[in-house]
């Protein structure tokens, strides 16, 4: 019974990691921008959700109606102002730009919101449904379910819709895509916006569970990068699977080995996967070089 509870805890934690990683895998895996400001976009959306609650009195789940489209716009804005001018520059230039953006955003948040930890004290977030000895936290279940639904929707979007096909075409061969009449700038902008909206959803959904402070993004983003690479770049199902695997390893090793060792265990697993399958669990061979196929 304890094992089952620990497993469920791990799956729910994995849901959090997966939800944060989905947006990253879209940006990192598809349009090939290593976005170090991803965690800060998470931070902004958490603050947005917090202020919707504390100022407007809006339930965090309801405030997603504002936060998610808002982050879509923020993402498109970042793409146009910061990424677009260096679109063709070497990738390390883009890394510097997004690291710079991350530092700026953290410090702006420090100036405007101070370094205090803020959290929402929501009764719903504490509700636990008991099934025998197993307790299931409703708000964590929502995050878990959202991760699965979003992964599925984006997978459908990329596979079935015209826009999704354009995104994949750009990822595979930009020049050929352009010859087919696709406007790369528009696609990049929308993809960045979409990735940001997804992390906005993550921020809004985890706000009732966690707390926000200017550098909160750094706590999550390293794990998110691990998840993305583990799952295979640009692969939505891979990100979901990667997130859940890391969550379960984290939870099981924390309980059965030692809480202080859990990070070590999942990094060892990560290294082993990369050793035997460098493209990640679900990634196509060569995807780490070429991008999504």
């Amino acid at each position, binding site marked *: 019974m304890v094992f089952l*509870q620990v497993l469920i805890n791990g799956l729910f*934690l994995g849901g959090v990691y997966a939800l944060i990683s989905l947006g990253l895998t879209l940006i990192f895996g598809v349009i090939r921008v290593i976005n170090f400001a991803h965690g800060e976009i998470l931070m902004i959306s958490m603050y947005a959700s917090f202020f919707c609650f504390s100022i407007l009195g809006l339930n965090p789940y309801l405030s997603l109606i504002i936060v998610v489209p808002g982050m879509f716009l923020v993402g498109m804005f970042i793409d146009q102002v910061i990424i677009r001018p260096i679109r063709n520059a070497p990738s390390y230039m883009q890394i510097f730009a997004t690291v710079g953006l991350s530092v700026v955003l953290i410090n702006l948040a420090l100036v405007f919101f101070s370094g*205090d930890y803020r959290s929402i004290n929501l009764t719903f977030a*504490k509700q636990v449904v008991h099934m025998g000895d197993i307790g299931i936290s409703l708000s964590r279940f929502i995050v878990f379910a959202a991760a699965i639904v979003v992964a599925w929707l984006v997978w459908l979007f990329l596979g079935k819709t015209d826009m999704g096909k354009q995104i994949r075409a750009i990822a595979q061969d930009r020049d050929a895509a352009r010859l087919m009449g696709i406007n790369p700038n528009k696609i990049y902008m929308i993809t960045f916006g979409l990735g940001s909206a997804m992390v906005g959803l993550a921020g809004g959904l985890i706000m009732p569970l966690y707390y926000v402070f200017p550098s909160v993004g750094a706590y*999550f983003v390293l794990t998110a990068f691990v998840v993305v690479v583990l799952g295979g770049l640009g692969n939505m199902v891979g990100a979901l699977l990667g997130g859940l695997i890391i969550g379960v390893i984290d939870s099981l090793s924390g*309980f059965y080995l030692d809480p*202080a060792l859990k990070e070590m265990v999942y990094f060892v697993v990560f290294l082993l996967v990369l050793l035997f399958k460098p493209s990640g669990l679900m990634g196509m061979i060569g995807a780490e070089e070429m991008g999504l196929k």
Partner: protein
Amino acid sequence: MRIFRHALLTAALVALLVAPMGTALAADEIKLGTIFSRTGPLANLGLDSWRGAELARIVQNQKGGLLGKKIVFVNGDAPNPKAAVSETERLCTVEKVPVILGSFSSSISLAASAKANQHKVIYWELGAVGDKITERGLKYVFRTCPTGSDLGRDQLRFALGELAKKIGKKPSEMKVASIYEDSAYGTACAAGIRDLAKEKGIKLAVDEAYNYKATDLSSLVMRVKAANPDVILESSYENDAIMFFRQAQEAGLKVRQFVGSGGGMNLPGYQKALGTATSGYVCNVGYPGYNLNPAYAKGIKELEALYTKTFGEKPNSVFSVINYMGTMALWDVINRAGSLDPEALVKAAQATNIPADKTILRFGIKFAGPGSKNMGQNVLARYFISQWQDGKLWIVSPAAAATPGRSLQVK
């Protein structure tokens, strides 16, 4: 020419700065140094700590000073350890003070006290808790306040003492879990807990470290739950403390009491994030403030009034009380030494034995002697226990010191 002009300007400035100090030196004064962060990131609590010493100086001067002379402070400013070293150097060599009082921050104290010790100047630590300060065998360093590992010892002492009594268990029946964040602060507290547990022959049900940056503590919660303890002794920063508490509630982990060691668990943000759930459920070990029972801490109300009168505002932290107490003990040492000779002062300090009821906080002062592991540390120093009740921290233990109308509650 420009260089010459600069030199001239600098010389003039130095003369301006030094001149008033020189004239202040008079035969009927005792000049002592202080090292606190008066500017920089620690200035807020550093300055409030200094105010405790300043109040003790004012009180003593009203009583006629020391050895028939008035006490004067030369106040050094140490925003960081590097500045602490140079300010200490200045106090020892230029100002030639026989004693330096400090310093709120452990890193500043470590740097400044080593320097003072080199110059055979007494370093009188009033508020910094780092264990290392008195573990270096420095002859001229004394500390009146308790240490970091005392935080842990007092957590356990309280759990096996008043808490066990309140919930009706024998100390030997108490199941104690110890969890701590794995940086210097948490490990020092946990070491104190382990130390006292060994001494008392108690086996800890859980003794686990975690990283305060972790984004999830559910596996730790499950481990603690599996051990089914009566009390959780916790040393956390703010965000991890909130997370542990929330995840413990989610997992249905029930104990009779949480006992923190200050850190994040006595911050308003902790209480705000968790709301009424902490009321009567979370205790904290730490320095007491002005909400002590006046019948126990005799003179605490008068001290608060003097603070407000002297500095024109209400006390902005609890730190002035412990600094006041430690400084009053220094006056006792200087009076007994009868002179400001460093060897006489060390001898008098080592012979210190101030009984509990002679100090405002009612713990006595007696220093660990030469040859002991923590030479110069006040072995009688104790923390107090407060508990969150109705959104505020109230002192609940020792019972006699409890804020009037408040007492320890358990779940």
